């Protein structure tokens, strides 16, 4: 009984300590952002590996998510004779929820894990310590560009995801299900608001980008410098990012839409 209490207390203290380290780490990285202005090529390189290389999975899943939404939505709506509202259904679910959330989950799997593994391996092979020896601050040189790249990439990827999803739904809806294309767009335009729906989705994806990038680089930076430690950190990145994104999404939805 005492042992159980001890272990619970120890794990609580450990996770509080991790949260504190992560926050201090984020503050140090933010303080070091000035370096990026002087060396923009660092950011371009990371935008390539974090953003462009994630594009394929985003494009394919966006199209398919939109197509499946169109099929499922149609079969529900047609019972009420409201199949003309298919565009509204697809556009609202994509801009408000599915776009930012699914993009963030895919991003955690594709880019977040890669970031953690890369930084963790740098730590395990003592490249980060070597940089410090040469008076190069790894937080400015390695961490900051990756965090900013995640922050920029995720909103862009989410917008591409949403647009392709709506495009996929349009193709399936008009060619396969026989929904009128004109009312697909006109009802969508009448019901989807730029500030309430598109902009809130964008804000969500920016926050998810910050969360995903932060968790990924911190887990890499904080991992045990062994092969086992790197693999655990990579797994933890994907799990924690997914949970944080889903939890954060609930809070943001409750705040944004009433």
């Amino acid at each position: 009984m005492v042992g159980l209490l001890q272990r619970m207390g120890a794990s609580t203290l450990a996770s509080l300590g991790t949260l504190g380290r992560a926050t201090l780490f984020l503050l140090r990285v933010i303080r070091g952002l000035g370096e990026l202005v002087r060396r923009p090529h660092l950011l371009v390189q990371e935008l390539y590996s974090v953003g462009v290389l994630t594009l394929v999975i985003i494009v394919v899943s966006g199209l398919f998510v939109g197509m499946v939404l169109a099929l499922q939505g149609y079969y529900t709506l047609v019972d009420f004779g409201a199949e003309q509202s298919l565009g509204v259904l697809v556009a609202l679910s994509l801009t408000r929820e599915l776009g930012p959330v699914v993009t963030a989950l895919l991003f955690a799997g594709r880019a977040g894990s890669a970031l953690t593994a890369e930084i963790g391996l740098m730590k395990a092979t003592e490249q980060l310590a070597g940089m410090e020896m040469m008076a190069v601050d790894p937080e400015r040189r390695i961490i900051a560009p990756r965090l900013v790249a995640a922050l920029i990439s995720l909103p862009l990827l989410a917008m591409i995801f949403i647009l392709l999803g709506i495009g996929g739904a349009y193709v399936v809806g008009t060619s396969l299900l026989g929904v009128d294309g004109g009312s697909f767009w006109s009802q969508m335009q009448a019901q989807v608001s730029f500030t309430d729906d598109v902009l809130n989705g964008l804000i969500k994806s920016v926050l998810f980008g910050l969360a995903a990038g932060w968790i990924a680089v911190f887990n890499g930076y904080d991992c045990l410098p062994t092969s086992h430690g790197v693999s655990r950190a990579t797994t933890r990145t994907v799990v924690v990012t997914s949970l944080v994104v889903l939890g954060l999404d609930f809070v943001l939805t409750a705040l944004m839409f009433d």
Partner: protein
Amino acid sequence: MENSRSMELVVGAFVAAGLAALFVLAMQVSNITAFQRTDGYTVEAYFQNVGGLRDRAPVRMGGVPIGRVSGITLDPARFEARVELTIDARYDDLPSDTAASIRTSGLLGEQYVSLQPGGMPDSLEDGDELMLTQSALVLEDLVSQFLYNQSGDGGDGGGGSE
């Protein structure tokens, strides 16, 4: 050098594609153009019941959208719903005795405000009130009225609906 140049190009294309997607979402998917169109005038109408009418619902005359509902509040003195209608400046010559009614497009579609022109020579101005209004049809009221009439008619034959 060659490699980093092509990488810059690809990253530039990616950022441009993302921004273009946002732009298309703004222009094509959402109603940002309708949002910007604030050049219109606002009239108000009081309804006993607005039913399911919502903000930004269309205002139509003869089936043509000519404006939007810009606000629905309860008037604390009259206990009626005060609905503000913003009408496009192009239609600035509506008769002052225009009547407003709340209709539903289709059986289960969205609700909108339908305007029927009157015959007065002077036209509606900003801030005017539409005097002739007709509330939304509430389905529950209709059903209960129907059932009430039914049981009244069939009173001797064993009251069908009860």
